[in-house]
């Protein structure tokens, strides 16, 4: 399997404290790669470095053959980012948000409008696209947040805890969207602190704790380190690796 992203020795300090330390891993083309770890593990900081927003203090990342440090614009052409918090304009409609970010991603006005319609169908909001986002439920707002990341048809999609605090219906919708994207050939990096989610969705998982990656493998490979893969949970894997519980 072809490697799409390769992170090498990524390190970031905030006020002298390491938030991410010497993190290395690869993501293969067309897989869903999970970063699983408790709050504060360094998942978001890692994504910010992978997506050219935050310059690493050490290390580099290669995305689709381009360095995030030296070829930021080439990397940005290929990625879509759905941040952990809603990053959109709630006083505008979903369509307006999508078209705006599409244009900033380099689409023409015409392309952006066509793409926005397709994305709304993809996230299941085609009927309510012209309503202002602040009138939506939390789950629907999150789906718009994901939709924005899809506007430029990214080869690699970052989803940072996309299911935190939403209703089961929206959560299932998001799972379906992610699986459909993989089927279309999109590579996905998915962070979460819900182990069942990682178990169900991800092809491979990097377990993260206190700024470091402590293990990488398929869910089955990780569980085999502890016991019978069919009767072990990722929760037990995390406890085994770190001596702590994954739950906050």
């Amino acid at each position, binding site marked *: 399997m072809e490697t799409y992203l390769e992170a090498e020795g990524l390190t970031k300090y905030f006020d002298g404290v390491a938030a991410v330390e010497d993190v290395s891993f690869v993501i293969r083309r067309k897989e869903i790669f999970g970063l699983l770890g408790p709050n504060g593990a360094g998942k978001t900081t890692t994504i910010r470095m992978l*997506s050219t*927003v935050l310059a690493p203090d050490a290390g580099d990342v290669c995305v689709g053959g381009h360095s995030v440090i030296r070829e930021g614009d080439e990397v940005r*052409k290929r990625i879509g*980012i759905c941040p952990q918090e809603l*990053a959109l304009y709630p*006083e505008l409609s979903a369509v307006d948000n999508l078209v705006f*970010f599409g244009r*900033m991603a*380099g689409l023409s006005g015409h392309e952006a409008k066509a793409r926005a319609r397709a994305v709304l169908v993809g996230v299941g909001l085609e009927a309510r696209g012209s309503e202002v986002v602040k009138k939506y439920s939390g789950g629907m707002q999150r789906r718009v947040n994901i939709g924005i990341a899809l506007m*430029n048809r990214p080869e690699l999609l970052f989803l940072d805890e996309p299911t935190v605090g939403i209703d089961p219906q929206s959560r299932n919708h998001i799972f379906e969207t992610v699986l459909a994207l993989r089927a279309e050939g999109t590579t996905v990096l998915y962070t979460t602190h819900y182990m069942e989610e990682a178990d169900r969705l991800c092809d491979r998982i990097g377990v993260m704790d206190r700024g470091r990656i402590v293990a990488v493998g398929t869910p089955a490979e990780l569980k085999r380190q502890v016991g019978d893969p069919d009767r072990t949970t990722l929760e037990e894997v995390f406890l085994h690796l770190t001596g702590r519980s994954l739950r906050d």
Partner: protein
Amino acid sequence: MVRSFHLARFELRRYLAHRSDLAFGIALPVVLFSLMVVALGSDAKFRGVMHVADLDGGSLANQVLERVENADGVTVRRYTQDELADALERTAVSTGFVIPPGFSASVESGAPASIVVKSRGSGGDEGRFVTGIVQGALRAAASEIELRRVAGVLAGDPANDARLDEAVRQALAGARTRPPVTVVTESMRLREASQLDRLLAGIVVMFLLFSGTLGARALIEERRTGTLERLMTTRLSAGELFAGKLLAGIGRVVLQSFVLLGLAFAVLGTAGPVVFLQCLVLAIVVAAAVTSIGLVIAAVARTEEQAAFSAVVLTMFMSVFGGTFLPTSGTGWLDVLARFTLNKYATDAFVGLFGEAATLADQSAELVILGAVAILGLAAARMMFRVSSSAV
């Protein structure tokens, strides 16, 4: 760079969708200005004092002053020549009249003579009103002189109709080419536009400053919610993002000044389209200056509350000390303080344009200062501009 324009256009759409911003930036100043016009009293326009130094004291001078005194709404206050000059100098008086020595004798002997009007700037509404009354009184006195001369001719030789005709014809022709009394206006072209002109300019500038600096809140909100950082993961560069926000800010303030000045010009009949266009050019420079101050606030403040507080305090401080409500033509520490406000230069320049019929070229000193504020502010903001709330 094209993306900066898209970004700015999008921002302007958001601004127009934001009703409370529009109400604050456009409706509030209109209401405030209207209230102040009412409070200042519009009857001031139809009342006035003729400040006069009568150096002649002759019968014609007395006759003119008597007529003025009898006119509705005008009283006569007498000065010595020095007192009047001093009052004009202190701007205690905006329009003064001097009746030169020998005025009455000169007119009675048939030679032309003038009353001199000394005004600061346009002289204001009161000055214009009183000057009109004085001119009317002079015209009436002049007709009387002519009448008396004709009557004198009649009395001298009542039988000679031909001579009478000739005398009347000559007198009327003479009066046409050489009116026996005239008003000569000596404008001192000093800053003393009408109080309303100054108030209008001051309030417009104050609200442009409010809008420009309060724009910082939106930028900090975007930093907090992460849309700025998200924009940095598109193809937009940090420079384009900054340029787009700057353009949007300038566009917003220019739009606001277009509406406010347009209303003022249309409703008050302040001045014509050429002056309006010059005001808009000035508004662009002012917009650049206030927007760059807003960007500096956005770069320095950490929270939206801090930004709003800084914007309001700065605007109020600069408005009060920059002469929005009171002219700053004194000396002393208040005048020195005024020099550190943007409002002083912006207000002076606007008043110059629509209150004193000056042109943009006359305001070059103010334009240079406002432009310098814009450029320095921008350089500082660009250096400190952060996309994320954390140190990147």
